[in-house]
């Protein structure tokens, strides 16, 4: 059967083969794993946002029934454990690397799995207790006595950057990075001659990933082989293995990481967690397997969090609305550790989006504060700056009378101008930006909006609409590897260094293999779960899963076909050049002599008369560093209706056009877009990790207070796919996982402001809660959430 007939190849919206397993409870998540004789770990966490750790008395805890070990930061240092190896800035060849303007190195703070000297945020792990049951471990944790010397704390992004702010690390101020990008002189000159300047100041609030599967770990140490084994879900197995080995101070091959199903990542699960290393270390210390499951309230406290960017930005325009320059300052709140500054990095280098911007000048600061560390969260940095750019445009239209569509059309980079290097130095490769926006406007019935607005007004509702464009620079870990083996039993093994966190790789990767080898998707074995098999690979982040996997799979598959042709030539007594490979069969051109792929694989194993280099398993490896960034882009149109009495927003229509280059499985891409929109709109309307500014306590520590978007917060989405192939990818594929989120903040807030324009509302901060909208309508001062108390 040809792959076209089987209907499973590239471009087919087939159902996800993993879903039946997952929805019938047969998934194998980390907490589903158990080992004989396993023990249980519980972490004692900091009750203070900032405090010096004095004496720790563990004697009573050790006497509790069932308690096997109580380990603290002091034990960890004594055992020679190392800090988590953070590389806060992305070193991908296509990235712009911000540097300190004063020439000093970027500050990285030692992040140990357990706090050693001070606690720096509420929830930071201070001790690990291992016991024969979770309850016994909790009893032990409660019996630990710690002398804390509380210190003043700072959680607010701007406040943390002030010179007199409470300082987290003795060796460095809170400002870990202070860079300047762009061309200051050219920008100043452009602002001088500008006819119009619009300013915008905002805070893109902190939110968190909330994966459905909480973190979990199960570790075992084998004293014979001196190897550690860890079951734990993450964004990538190989990186987790290497990072764990670094913290434990052992060669990386002494660590084996296993992860089968992973229930959500969104970036916040993208790297090693302190608890993973502590659990592995504890397993060696107690000589038994140790298991840990993060409870939901702990997840809110100390999962890596996302966003949290304070922005001041200005846009200069000429009389006609042509953009001349932009400038501003971004402060990214890193939290208590120098975990990752890439949201700040990404958030400056494409701040001008896909608009023609002759000059730009931005200051970029990463600040430390007494909050949970932050990491890239779905589309790190891009949704933040797309929000800023699109708000600037709509504010300019408002203030100076430009049409919101016309001004965008005027400034969008035209295909003839591509590749285009933006004022920060990023080079966009390709795209039909204007065409995609126009399609979104058409599908979203932009032209019919005035009638809908009038109809809503008659019902007492205020209706608004907005359009927002975006570009998403996808880089991430540039190296990926695959080993593909054609097995004689009709199965193809694909070993690859990505991990599905719910994206459906088992289906989509297999669709690629189906396309090239015409084997049913069910006969493709995607192997990602075991670092003893998967030796190299960058995991799943930065829109690199399908993008890099398909890249290396294609090259390895081509090599297998070439090898197969030579074997087939031997078997069919023809010349390799005479062999064609179609529909899973090698054929002699112009004859009916043929041999199947799996027969060729069997012959390679069995037939001793084959030339030596063709004997053995029919397999190929591709291990490649992909230097190019990818640039998915698109446009969203959002329409809202607001109840002016209470300030409630209803999203009544949401239309997207996302260019994914080539859609391997359109159904899965639509699903990715739906989820992405929900996460973006969630930020715009609902979500917020709220810290009490006075004492640094987290006030949104459970679902009672952290507002998640739900299905009934949304209409049915109208999602459309554009396919302008990406030139640097062998299949033209652009990433498709982040487009849903990228412009969602911008388009939602712009639609709200548009709805309320007649009421004199100029801006509503995120989350745009009913109260904030009600205040804006009634000319009342915005009350920031942290200060709303009391």
């Amino acid at each position: 059967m040809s792959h076209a007939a089987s209907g499973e190849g590239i471009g087919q919206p087939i159902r996800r083969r993993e879903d039946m397993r997952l929805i019938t409870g047969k998934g194998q998540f980390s907490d589903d794993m158990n080992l004989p004789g396993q023990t249980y770990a519980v972490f004692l966490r900091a009750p203070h946002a900032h405090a010096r750790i004095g004496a720790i008395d563990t004697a009573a805890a050790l006497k509790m029934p069932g308690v096997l070990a109580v380990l603290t930061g002091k034990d960890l240092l004594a055992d020679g454990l190392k800090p988590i190896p953070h590389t806060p800035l992305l070193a991908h060849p296509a990235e712009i690397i911000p540097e300190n303007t004063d020439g000093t190195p970027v500050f990285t703070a030692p992040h140990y799995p357990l706090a050693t000297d001070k606690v720096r945020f509420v929830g930071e792990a201070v001790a690990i207790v291992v016991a024969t049951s979770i309850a016994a471990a909790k009893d032990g944790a409660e019996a630990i006595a710690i002398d804390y010397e509380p210190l003043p704390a700072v959680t607010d992004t701007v406040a943390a950057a002030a010179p007199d702010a409470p300082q987290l690390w003795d060796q460095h101020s809170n400002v870990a990075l202070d860079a300047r990008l762009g061309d200051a002189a050219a920008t100043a000159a452009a602002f001088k001659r500008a006819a119009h300047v619009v300013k915008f100041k905002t805070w893109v609030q902190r939110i968190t990933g909330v994966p459905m599967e909480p973190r979990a770990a199960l570790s075992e140490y084998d004293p014979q082989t001196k190897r550690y084994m860890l079951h734990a879900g993450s964004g990538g197995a190989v990186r987790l293995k290497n990072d764990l080995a670094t913290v434990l101070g052992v060669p990386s091959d002494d660590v084996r990481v296993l992860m089968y199903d992973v229930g959500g990542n969104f970036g916040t699960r993208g790297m090693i967690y302190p608890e993973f290393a502590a659990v592995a270390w504890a397993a060696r210390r107690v000589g038994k397997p140790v298991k840990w499951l993060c409870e939901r309230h702990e997840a809110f406290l100390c999962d890596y969090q996302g966003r949290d960017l304070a922005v001041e930005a200005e846009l200069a325009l000429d009389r006609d609305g042509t953009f001349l320059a932009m400038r501003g300052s971004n402060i990214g709140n890193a939290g208590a550790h120098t975990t990752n500054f890439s949201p700040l990095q990404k958030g400056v280098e494409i701040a001008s989006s896909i608009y023609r911007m002759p000059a730009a000048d931005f200051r970029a600061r990463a600040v430390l504060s007494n909050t949970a560390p932050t990491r890239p969260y779905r589309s790190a940095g891009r949704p933040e700056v797309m929000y800023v750019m699109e708000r600037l445009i709509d504010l300019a239209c408002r203030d100076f009378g430009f049409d919101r569509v016309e001004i965008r059309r005027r400034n969008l980079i035209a295909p003839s101008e591509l590749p285009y290097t933006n004022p920060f130095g990023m080079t966009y490769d390709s795209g039909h930006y204007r065409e995609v926006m126009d399609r979104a406007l058409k599908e979203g019935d932009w032209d019919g909006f005035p009638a809908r607005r009038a109809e809503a007004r008659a019902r007492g509702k205020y209706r608004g609409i907005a359009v927002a464009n975006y570009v998403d620079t996808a880089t991430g870990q540039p190296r990926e590897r695959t080993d593909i083996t054609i097995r004689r039993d009709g199965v193809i093994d694909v070993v690859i260094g990505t991990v599905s966190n719910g994206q459906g790789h088992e289906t989509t990767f297999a669709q690629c293999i189906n396309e090239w080898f015409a084997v049913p998707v069910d006969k493709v074995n995607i192997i990602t779960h075991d670092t003893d098999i998967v030796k190299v690979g960058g995991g799943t982040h930065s829109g690199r899963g399908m993008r890099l996997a398909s890249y290396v799979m294609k090259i390895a598959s081509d090599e297998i076909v070439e090898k197969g042709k030579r074997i087939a030539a031997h078997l069919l007594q023809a010349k390799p050049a005479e062999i064609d490979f179609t529909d899973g069969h090698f054929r002699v051109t112009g004859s009916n002599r043929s041999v199947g792929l799996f027969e060729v694989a069997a012959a390679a194993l069995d037939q001793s008369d084959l030339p030596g280099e063709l004997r053995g398993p029919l397999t190929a490896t591709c291990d490649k560093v992909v230097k190019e960034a990818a640039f998915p882009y698109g446009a969203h149109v959002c329409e809202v209706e607001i109840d002016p009495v209470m300030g409630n927003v209803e999203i009544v229509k949401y239309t997207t056009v996302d260019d994914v280059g080539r859609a391997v499985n359109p159904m899965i891409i639509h699903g990715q877009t739906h989820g992405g929109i929900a996460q973006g709109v969630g930020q715009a309307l609902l979500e917020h990790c709220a810290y009490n500014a006075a004492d640094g306590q987290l006030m949104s520590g459970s679902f009672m207070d952290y507002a998640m978007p739900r299905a009934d917060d949304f209409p049915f989405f109208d999602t459309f796919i554009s396919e302008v192939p990406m030139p640097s990818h062998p299949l033209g594929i652009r990433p498709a996982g982040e487009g849903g989120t990228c412009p969602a903040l911008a388009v939602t807030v712009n639609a709200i402001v548009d709805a309320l324009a007649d009421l004199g509302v100029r801006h509503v901060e995120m989350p745009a809660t009913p109260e904030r909208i009600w205040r804006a309508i009634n000319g009342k001062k915005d009350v920031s959430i942290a200060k709303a108390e009391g």
Partner: protein
Amino acid sequence: MYAFDYHQPKSVDEAAQMLGAKPEPKLLAGGMSLLPTLKLRLAQYTDLVDLSAIDSIKGIERDGDALVIGAMTRHVEVATSDTVKRAIPALTTLAGGIGDPLVRNRGTMGGSIANADPAADYPSAVLGLGATVITDKRQIAGDDFFKGLFETALEPGEIVMAVRYPVPLQAAYIKYPNPASRFALVGVFVARTAAGVRVAVTGAGPCVFRLTDAEALLAKNFSAAALENFTVKPDGLNADIHATAEYRAHAVAVMLKRAVAAAGGNT
């Protein structure tokens, strides 16, 4: 969760006996509020006395001019009962709007009022209808039942058996949900009964309360128009990360007007 002993008595007497005999006992109904507290180790009891096997405190009955609902009646049963819908449709709406299906399948009316969460829905019905709480020891008027934040008139060891709700002439409950928990950020229960008009507000303050000035206006003219200039003062209302006291005060006034309209007040 700390360790405890579990009991499942078959009668109210047996349950009461256990409550008297154990060092630190606690009644367990649907467990939807109690179990999370225990799981987080925020409370510790020696014994849990589960009421789920006591049939005499389950069920819904029309008794003359009142509706009697057993303490162990689940939210889903109230939400789907024809008897309730015919007598007090406002209770149908109220119970159907509690939490999600999982919570409604487990949670009970008795548990809800005994718990007296400041953002719970049921307390507004008890107060708003001037209901009577029937315990194993006495009858408590709705006006005397709720005493403060998670505080009721129940004595230690006292068991709620049922609530007797007078069937009103008109009534409605409007809830303005908290965006995160979907408990009531503000909930207003309004009823016109033979005894007069009552307005009860939940979610807005530390404890459910009556709005007597609104009741006076509505007693004269049971219509949203009577409330046109009616406002609520924010003093003493809750303020948290979800809403200021000022917004809650506004929400109370708006929900009250909507409730009166929903109850079929003259327009």
